[in-house]
């Protein structure tokens, strides 16, 4: 390594003028390793004394930054505590699938729309991209997205990391409905994926006409395979499972199909004699992502940071308590505050070093207030399950350690 470095000490004069082309080729190939990218941080004592890496075809994350999702056999969670702002890097977007990630050849991809329509049609990916396009920033969240831990040792990622946000681009489903001539008598449509689960969900036509997107892009590039490549349904503000990935077929109907995922799953027992079904909207929620387990803090100024979102509309207020819910203060909301989107909030606080609990609660434009866990349990007759969005507290110990606490 050191030898190559020596070879690499070109004079400025050599790099300019006629000899430059040959010299640059040398630098990029034979001795490419000598550049900072291939060196350990120990070897680079002073970055001002050695040339940096040449322009490349793909950007990379710093070697010092290693945010990772937390996978299980059925899902993988976004590291909320490691992120900034509101857009989830696409490779850190949460995953939930029921038959693995399929490898779909975009040149063979087709979306069929049939049922109660004038013209049953087949659209290729290229067809979808020719239609007028729409983009919107919105969160996506699995409705089974709450976990706690008795010992408090649980990260935001593990509590509610099945939440992510992207800018989605595609064709409005209403545009395709118009193209195929949907019957005015249609009330539901079935969305079906091309994965091994052949995932199906029934969706009311009203949502399809209102703001549904057949998305082929995410954060400026093609949708990632884990998120439905080459095209997926995206239903802003609704439980993630309804945004069927790898969408291959839409059947327009006048009744729901009562698929497995809308009967035996994604329904919740409420009290002794009620099973709630088609609970699409994601309730309003927030979580403090800093400070949170496993971080440690020192007494003095702390900027409490977190995220808030609502499937019902915009976040209008986030309140923060630094005394276990005895009193609440308004947090600052970071623009932009978008409909059905993750909104970042912050609250500057001077910690006196005494043990306390901090927590946040979100209020949306409909007046919904994020409930405490015990309120939710009471409202649902003691049942837990889907659509659990409780206030989440963090206990700050005297030694600065931060632990989760159920509310």
């Amino acid at each position: 390594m050191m030898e190559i470095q020596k070879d690499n000490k070109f004079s400025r004069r050599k790099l300019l003028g006629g000899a430059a082309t040959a010299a640059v080729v040398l630098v990029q190939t034979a001795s490419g390793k000598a550049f900072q990218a291939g060196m350990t941080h120990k070897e680079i004592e002073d970055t001002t004394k050695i040339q940096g890496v040449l322009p490349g075809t793909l950007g990379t994350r710093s070697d010092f930054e290693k945010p990772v999702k937390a996978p299980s056999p059925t899902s993988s969670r976004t590291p909320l505590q490691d992120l900034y702002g509101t857009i989830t890097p696409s490779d850190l977007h949460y995953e939930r699938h029921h038959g693995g990630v399929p490898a779909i050849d975009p040149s063979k991809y087709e979306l069929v729309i049939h049922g109660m329509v004038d013209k049953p049609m087949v659209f290729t990916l290229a067809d979808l991209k020719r239609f007028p396009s729409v983009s919107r920033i919105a969160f996506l969240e699995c409705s089974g997205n709450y976990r706690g831990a008795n010992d408090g040792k649980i990260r935001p990622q593990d509590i509610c990391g099945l939440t992510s946000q992207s800018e989605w681009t595609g064709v409005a489903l209403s545009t395709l409905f118009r193209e195929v001539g949907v019957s005015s008598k249609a009330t539901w449509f079935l969305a079906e994926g091309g994965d091994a689960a052949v995932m199906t969900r029934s969706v009311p036509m009203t949502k399809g006409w209102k703001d549904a997107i057949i998305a082929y892009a995410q954060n400026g590039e093609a949708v990632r395979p884990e998120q439905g490549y080459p095209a997926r349904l995206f239903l802003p503000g609704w439980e993630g499972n309804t945004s069927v990935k790898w969408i291959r077929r839409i059947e327009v109907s006048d009744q729901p199909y009562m698929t497995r995922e809308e009967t035996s799953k994604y329904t919740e027992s409420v009290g002794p004699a009620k099973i709630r079904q088609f609970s699409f909207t994601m309730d309003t929620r927030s979580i403090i992502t800093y400070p949170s387990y496993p971080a440690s803090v020192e007494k003095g100024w702390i900027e409490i940071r977190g995220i808030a979102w609502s499937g019902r509309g915009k976040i209008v207020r986030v309140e923060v308590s630094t005394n276990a819910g005895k009193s609440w203060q308004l947090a600052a909301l970071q623009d932009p505050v978008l409909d059905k989107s993750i909104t970042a909030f912050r609250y500057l606080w001077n910690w006196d070093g005494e043990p306390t609990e901090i927590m946040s609660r979100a209020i949306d434009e409909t007046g919904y207030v994020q409930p405490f866990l015990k309120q939710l349990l009471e409202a649902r007759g003691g049942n837990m399950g889907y659509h659990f969005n409780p206030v989440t507290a963090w206990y700050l110990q005297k030694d600065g350690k931060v632990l989760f606490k159920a509310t």
Partner: protein
Amino acid sequence: MIKKLSVITVLFVSLASYRSYTDGWQERVSEGLVAKPDTLEWPKSFGFGRPATEKEIAAIDIDIRPDGKGLPAGQGNAVTGKAIYAAKCSACHGATGIEGPNDRLVVGDTSSVKSRRVKAIGNYWPYATTVFDYVRRAMPFNEPGSLTDEEVYSLTAYLLHANGLIDSKKVLNAKTLPQVDMPAKKYYVPDDREDGPVIR
């Protein structure tokens, strides 16, 4: 300055849905900041895509509705289904649908409220047609979509029988399957949550 702010506003608005994007466009057009929405000049049809043939729709139209629409020809019963279950399902769902390791399918008492915390077919599933639809599209996990329609009818019969919902000799077909009474159906209610300060 005002112009700059308006440009920013337009930017944010354009990030919202297509519909809300087109709302209030007149104002912005009069400010000369954006083009009028192209929806005004949309043709009746863009003509993209091609008509789907009946044959290609039939090849992938595998869904079953609760009223039985979509059920194929064929039939089966629990006795035949038991053998198929043992060979293709028991490794994941247990010898009798109770033992796991994966989802429990069978529950002894289908009427007990307490037992609904276990979401088995007999005490939680509201429609028998869903069993057929799901098994045919997604099972067995290691070989999804590999069962014949006859096998799926038989497996469905076995699972319904194991939950005490039909007789072991009952023949299931497109006509009889939608008629199977499911105890949990009466508990199902559509979403009753609403906007505003209500916790439900």
